[in-house]
């Protein structure tokens, strides 16, 4: 459904048999929704679904690149929260300033991650766990522990509402741009090859003379920038900078990446499948909402966290079964 024209589907399927499941599950769930709920296929539902999930797609793409190098970024949710506060403060200057400002704020925190991981050689999960704290503290200090209302008079609030050429909302268009950018970067540049090589074996990549440090620095800064952009969407979509948002986002992002067939040990993965993973996870909640609306089930908001965890567990369980099976057959990787 995304990018179908920009890449060779057959070659993709052949090279990514273990991410085939996510596409099958996604299309099956869409078919299920279309048949069961009459409002499922409406423009309104599709638009609000994509608008809301655009934030999760963004952090998932950043997370995908980080995980491909064998690292992890646990700070994405709070970095997004921090950037949403920055963007809200910048909103009176218009979207032209607030959007790059939010992205830069995220990239700045990402570069601190890169510094602690690469220069200070702190394990990625400790470094980004500390950044979780730091970004949360930063967001609270900056906002005075309150939501920061955006300037409704400026065009900042219009980001999610106005449409490019009256067809596609800007948020969705921007996300599409990031997807294509990340995909081209990974599949068609030296940097992308290096990122995959690091995940395969960091020592071997280093010995081959690849610029491992630069590539690793790039993925953490890129992940920060993606989280920053997600923060801009958050502020614009909800009308305020949200210093307390972002809880559990890292879990959603990791789940999306893993669902998309990316190995947690790094070295393998695909951007389109990660996006499909994010959409699949979002779709589960969308369908649960419809079921709630029909009255067949009644789940409180607290179930969200439980379901996210259960979903991640299921995916990891299946992936580890596949991995253990292919490990016993050394010919297939």
């Amino acid at each position, binding site marked *: 459904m995304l990018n179908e024209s920009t890449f060779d589907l057959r070659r993709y399927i052949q090279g990514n048999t273990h991410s085939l499941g996510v596409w099958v599950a996604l299309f099956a769930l869409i078919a299920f929704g279309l048949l069961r709920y009459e409002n499922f296929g409406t423009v309104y539902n599709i638009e609000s679904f994509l608008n809301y999930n655009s934030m999760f797609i963004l952090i998932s793409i950043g997370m995908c690149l980080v995980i491909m190098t064998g690292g*992890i970024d*646990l700070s994405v949710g709070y970095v997004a929260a921090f950037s949403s506060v920055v963007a809200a403060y910048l909103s009176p200057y218009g979207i032209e300033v607030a959007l790059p400002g939010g992205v830069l704020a995220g990239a700045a925190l990402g570069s601190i991650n890169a510094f*602690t991981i690469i220069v*200070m*050689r*702190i*394990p990625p*999960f*400790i*470094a980004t*766990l*500390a*950044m*979780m*704290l*730091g970004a*949360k*503290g*930063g967001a*609270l*200090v900056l906002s005075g*522990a309150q939501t920061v209302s955006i300037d409704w008079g400026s065009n900042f609030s219009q980001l999610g509402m106005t449409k490019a050429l009256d067809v596609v909302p800007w948020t969705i268009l921007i996300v599409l741009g990031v997807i294509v950018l990340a995909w081209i970067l990974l599949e068609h540049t030296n940097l992308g090859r290096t990122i995959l090589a690091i995940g395969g074996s960091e020592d071997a990549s280093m010995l081959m003379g690849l610029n491992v440090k630069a590539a690793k620095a790039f993925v953490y800064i890129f992940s920060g920038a993606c989280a920053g952009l997600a923060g801009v969407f958050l502020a614009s979509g909800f009308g305020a900078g949200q210093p307390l948002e972002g809880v*559990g986002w*890292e*879990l959603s992002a*990791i789940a999306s990446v*893993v669902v998309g067939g990316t190995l*947690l*040990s790094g070295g393998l993965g695909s951007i389109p499948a990660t996006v499909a993973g994010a959409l699949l996870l979002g779709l589960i909640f969308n369908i649960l909402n419809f079921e709630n609306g029909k009255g067949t089930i009644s789940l*409180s*908001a*607290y*179930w*969200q*966290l*439980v*379901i*996210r*965890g*259960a979903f*991640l*567990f299921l995916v*990891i*369980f299946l992936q*580890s079964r596949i991995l*253990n099976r292919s490990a016993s057959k050394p010919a297939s990787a």
Partner: protein
Amino acid sequence: MTTPVAADEPAHKTARPVFGFDTGLLKRNGTLIALALLLAFNILFTPNFLQLQTLFVNISQVTTIAIVAVGMTLVIATGGIDLSVGAVMALAGALAPLIFTSSFGVEYPVLGLIAAFILPLLAAMLCGLFNGAMVSYLRVQPIIATLILFISGRGIAQVLTNGNLQTFSNPYFSYLGTGKILGLPFQGWLGLALAIGVFWLVSRTIFGRYLLAIGGNERAAMLAGTPVRLVKIGAYVLCATLAGIAGLIVVAINSASDAARNGNLMELDAIAAAVVGGAVLQGGRAPIFGAILGAIIIQLVKYTLLANGVEDEVALIAKAAIIVIAVYLQTSARD
């Protein structure tokens, strides 16, 4: 790793002298020096620091961190990590009041009270079993495996309580948080007893030998016939059980259970305490009393910032910096 270092003796490391100073000395005794500096600063600048009340407040706060940090040290000794400790605290803490305020608990107060201690700890053990099985049987990285309960464990606690704050008045249960023995808080003694028990387990039992051997070199330990999977599961179960106890203590102190806040960010405090206390993230060492020393330092830092009027939010950033610096000093000391 030939002989695993059992507990608190730091492995001797030689470091190049910088400007004539033996930096190795600083790194080896950094924890004690940091503690001395913190105490000196507080005695000089924090008003009312040398009061019994201050001691009580700090003991009751440090105990929960210390208990969780001891469990975290066991998991880290296997080369793993447990992010779910805070969520397990919330889960155990949410279950206890549910049990003794239920109709069963009201009808049979004694049985209800016993169940209110045992069932939450059983639930915590189940969480540990889940983490351990994910890590050792499905071979999922510990960060990812424990991330599942990190989020959904708290979710389950919130679903159980419907997100409500549960308040109660039950003097017997509250004894866990407010009781005193020889004038000192009961949970301080409990924490000490638990730490001694775990220290004995690590230094005097075959389980402890296996634990350190796995962290030292998992493959070698496996080839030497160590029941790697069982020992790893044991470490995660112990860690989760200790977290469960800490969760009950927090609830008993407050006479209220708040699933959203109980144990929030505890995993960070516990990891920091363990690392400051000398645990090595690659595994192979289990300095139990080091973890307690680390917990005391973390608590003193918090208290110092708070008592001197630094805002909570800034304290978060300070804590993040301390964690990074502690891990940095530790990894650079190993090189």
